[in-house]
């Protein structure tokens, strides 16, 4: 059977035009997808049943036992941490927030290691953004700053920017000018009309210089800024100011280098300056499939997009203090529930090491780098493959994941609901 218009759950592009061939409970072919989509949809490293660590290794346990043990660990904790959420659907994320409130936990999502700084910058100066459809149909100047879509978001350029034909840019690549800014010449830089190579950690300076040029104050700039010739910045500023519609996309090269959210803020303020001359927008290239959704869901319920601390019964938010990496690094939390993410692969060593010291439970369909750090792992469905649900694309557009195959695994929303109910039972509600 061929299922059309399937949504790929891997990255923030959430490409929704895939054709997937299914044979019984197996996906056998993926068309229109990138290599990442194909590997995600056809991959098979599923954990068959819940497992618990014992002195002699792992033992399989029942779902009932796993749920009971998870609830008991979370209820007994003085500072539990609930982390992850970005590779599942909104329905599971919302139950996670309710559990956090119930047990006075800190709940955080993978923004902490990707675009959390972008959110901080947006909270300071706003977000002159737009949907990817607007970019596809209008943008004649595209800037990729500190990101490499060719390898990380392989269809971004073909669906929305460089190679996409749009209503006002019918000739695609011929009508569009692509500028890539990075510290190294990436695959994406090879496609660019203009490549700005910045010295490592020099993004803030270059953005400030561009802002000064756009404000007409470029004469005070030195000959070279962070390894970039002043003349090149004047040329790029000219291209941007003459654009009919420009779009900046940025990645972790901006959010995770020195300066962090101040880099993003500077990029947003450059966008604001450019809007005095033409129409310009800026958007983060989000990584996990539904990380934007976790920000949305957390915000609806708590008022804050990530790093929400319910320790005192009310939501408190202070990235740097209530973020998962910081809490783990300081050894603050005494239990952790990880859902739909892999901190073992992405967190700094000190943070990941603390997960191994405390009772950590992982809800994830696969064996991951986090599995060896856990006391308990509970397998579940994978959103977009054997579970449907709501996800948010990187531009904030909600898209419905399809269920492609039937499976015997429980949906993570159901698992979390059972954990939630068990906690209420233990608390005597």
């Amino acid at each position: 059977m061929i299922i059309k218009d399937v949504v790929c759950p891997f990255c923030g592009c959430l490409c929704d035009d895939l054709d997937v061939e299914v044979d019984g409970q197996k996906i056998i072919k993926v068309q229109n997808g990138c290599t990442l989509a194909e590997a995600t949809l056809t991959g098979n490293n599923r954990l068959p049943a819940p497992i618990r660590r014992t002195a002699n290794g792992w033992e399989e346990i029942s779902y009932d036992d796993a749920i009971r043990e998870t609830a008991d660990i979370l209820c007994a904790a003085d500072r539990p941490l609930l982390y992850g959420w970005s590779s599942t659907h909104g329905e599971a994320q919302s139950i996670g927030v309710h559990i956090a409130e119930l047990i006075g936990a800190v709940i955080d999502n993978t923004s902490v290691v990707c675009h959390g700084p972008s959110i901080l910058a947006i909270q300071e100066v706003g977000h002159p953004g737009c949907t990817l459809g607007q970019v596809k149909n209008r943008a004649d100047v595209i800037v990729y700053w500190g990101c490499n879509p060719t390898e990380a978001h392989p269809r971004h350029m073909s669906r929305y920017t460089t190679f996409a034909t749009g209503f006002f840019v019918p000739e695609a690549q011929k009508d569009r000018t692509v500028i890539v800014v990075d510290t190294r010449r990436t695959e994406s830089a090879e496609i660019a009309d203009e490549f700005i190579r910045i010295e490592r950690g020099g993004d803030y300076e270059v953005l400030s210089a561009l802002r000064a040029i756009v404000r007409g104050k470029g004469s005070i700039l030195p000959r070279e800024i962070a390894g970039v010739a002043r003349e090149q910045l004047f040329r790029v500023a000219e291209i941007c100011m003459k654009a009919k519609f420009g779009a900046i996309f940025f990645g972790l090269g901006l959010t995770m280098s020195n300066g962090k959210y101040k880099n993003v803020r500077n990029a947003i303020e450059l966008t604001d300056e450019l809007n005095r001359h033409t129409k310009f927008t800026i958007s983060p290239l989000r990584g996990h499939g539904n990380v934007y959704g976790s920000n949305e869901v957390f915000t609806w319920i708590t008022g804050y997009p990530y790093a929400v601390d319910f320790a005192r019964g009310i939501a408190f938010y202070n990235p740097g203090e209530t973020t998962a990496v910081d809490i783990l690094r300081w050894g603050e939390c005494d239990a952790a529930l990880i859902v739909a993410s892999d901190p073992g692969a992405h967190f700094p060593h000190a943070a990941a090491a603390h997960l191994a010291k405390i009772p950590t439970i992982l809800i994830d369909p696969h064996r991951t780098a986090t599995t060896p750090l856990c006391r308990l792992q509970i397998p579940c469905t994978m959103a977009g493959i054997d579970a449907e649900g709501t996800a948010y694309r990187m531009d904030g557009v909600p898209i419905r994941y399809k269920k492609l195959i039937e499976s015997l695994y429980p949906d993570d929303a159901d698992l979390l609901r059972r954990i939630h109910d068990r906690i209420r039972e233990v608390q005597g509600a």
Partner: protein
Amino acid sequence: MRVILETKERKKPFLPIEAETIIPSNFLKGPELTVYEGNKERLLSDLFTIVVEGTAVSPDKVEVVLKGDTARIKRVGEYMATGTIRIQGDIGMHCGNFMSGGVIEIGGNADAWLGREMLGGSIICHGNAGHYCASGYRGEKHGMRGGRVEVMGNAGDFCSEYLTGGEVHIHGNCGDMAGVEMKGGQLIIEGDATRPCGNMKDGMCMIFGTVHRILPTFEKIDTKKLPDRNVTVTVYKGDVANRGKGTLMIQKPHNEGDQHPANTLPGPATT
């Protein structure tokens, strides 16, 4: 009146304690206050040995002394308006948040957000201060608006972010981006700094150590002799990426070879 709070041994010493109730005025009614240890509310007496010496009729006559393992106690002195708090060792985050008067003296190091959005009073830290010393809350447009923060050691990244009023005096070095988004007030750094005063709109920053990677959007306008220090400083206006009405005075401007030595940067703030 002198209230001495000495920490007791805890089963889980890594848990943060949120103790905004520790301000001098609260002890006029007695020491039976509560604090949060993780997600549990505790009596102050569960976590501290409390000794009260003498009496007081007004909060300005109350001195609170903190002893023991105080490094994970947060929010001490939050919203404090008068009186004195003396901390013998290190103190946790948010010490002196929003304080409008009184004195806090810290014998050791202070963690992040020392004197955040402070309005008045003074804080003296004899050790180092963490990131965001004398800065603003996330998304807030104004940081410290009044009072004085003096750090005898070093300060971390984003020191005096959004500084709007008052004086911040760092005797050691500052991390990355001290005085970023400054709108007013005075920031004095006796040691080194990296990329100071980005997006500065107003106010004055003086740096007497070496400045690494001065931003390209600061315009050198003058040199000036400071008679009280007997030194000559270079005066810059900036940040011209913004309104450019801030004043940055530097005794030792960076040299060309020092433009972007990424390995000289201090460890970044984690957010």
